[in-house]
């Protein structure tokens, strides 16, 4: 199995994160590692740095990991999670500025072709540029 960029989905809602991951798996298949998390440490709406770190490690690939987020706190907490990774992993993780569902599907499609982390991010972020 060739190594492909991993995809992490971080939403305030675990249901949205899971539903997005389900869509990615159905549309892109299983050659790309996809992990997801959502909810605050009590399980309510919000995000959780520790779960984000776990999700990044679950989707880990030597080519790196692209994170897709929904709203503000998901982005801030994802950036914090990246900084708390081991130093050599930090530079191989990006938080994409893209809509969560479309961004995740586009990023995973690009990743499946063996693209680099920067290419995967660029394809996801084209959605915002338009």
């Amino acid at each position: 199995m060739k190594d492909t960029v991993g995809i992490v989905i971080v939403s305030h809602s675990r249901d949205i994160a899971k539903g997005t991951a389900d869509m990615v798996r159905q549309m892109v298949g299983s050659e790309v590692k996809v992990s997801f998390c959502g909810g605050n440490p009590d399980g309510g709406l919000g995000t959780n740095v520790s779960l984000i770190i776990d999700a990044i490690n679950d989707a880990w690939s030597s080519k790196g990991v692209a994170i897709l987020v929904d709203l503000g706190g998901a982005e801030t907490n994802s950036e914090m999670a990246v900084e708390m990774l081991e130093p050599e992993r930090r530079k191989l993780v990006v938080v994409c500025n893209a809509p969560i569902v479309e961004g995740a599907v586009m990023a995973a499609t690009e990743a499946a072709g063996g693209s680099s982390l920067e290419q995967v991010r660029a394809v996801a972020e084209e959605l915002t540029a338009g």
Partner: protein
Amino acid sequence: MTLRPDTFKSLVKVAAEQVIASAPELTALDQAIGDGDHGTNMKRGFEAVLSKLDAIGSQPLAEAVKTVGRTLVMTVGGASGPLYGSFFLAAGEALSRKTLPEDLAEVFGSGVDAVSARGRSQAGEKTMLDVLVPVLETLRANAGRADLIERVRATANEAVARTAPMQATKGRASFLGPRSVGHIDPGARSSCVLLHAVCEGLEGKQ
């Protein structure tokens, strides 16, 4: 003023208790212009900090401050976790090279810079920085003065009130545009609560 680890422990306890007590007010403010979770998020974070009070009291000061930061990062569950967490992580890092009280403004400034970087925000955008930045200026301008604590408290109060007429350009409140005007910023308010608690704790030690 000296700040030994046991003094810091008692400050953390007062600060955590006051944040927890202010949770309903913070939530009400956040319901007006945000997503209504600031009170419950801060309460969860500071309850976790309280549960680590013994560890915090047994660590060297710089490490204890970082423990508060790491705990907030891991437990708050909203953007305020990384924001307050980064403040304490950076202040703790600065404390490992600086001494108190001489370098208080510098240590506080390291925390403020970290919040600004984490939130990619500046003062004037209706956020906690609208309290933290004026307080930093007060600390710089009044280092060593006998009435420093009183000045910090007054600065924080005035700064919170000044967030009401501001229009939010950062955070969830920015979604409201002009409708964010007329409400105090919840993050500015929680910063004020924390600063008041620290002032009160330090006065009790004098």
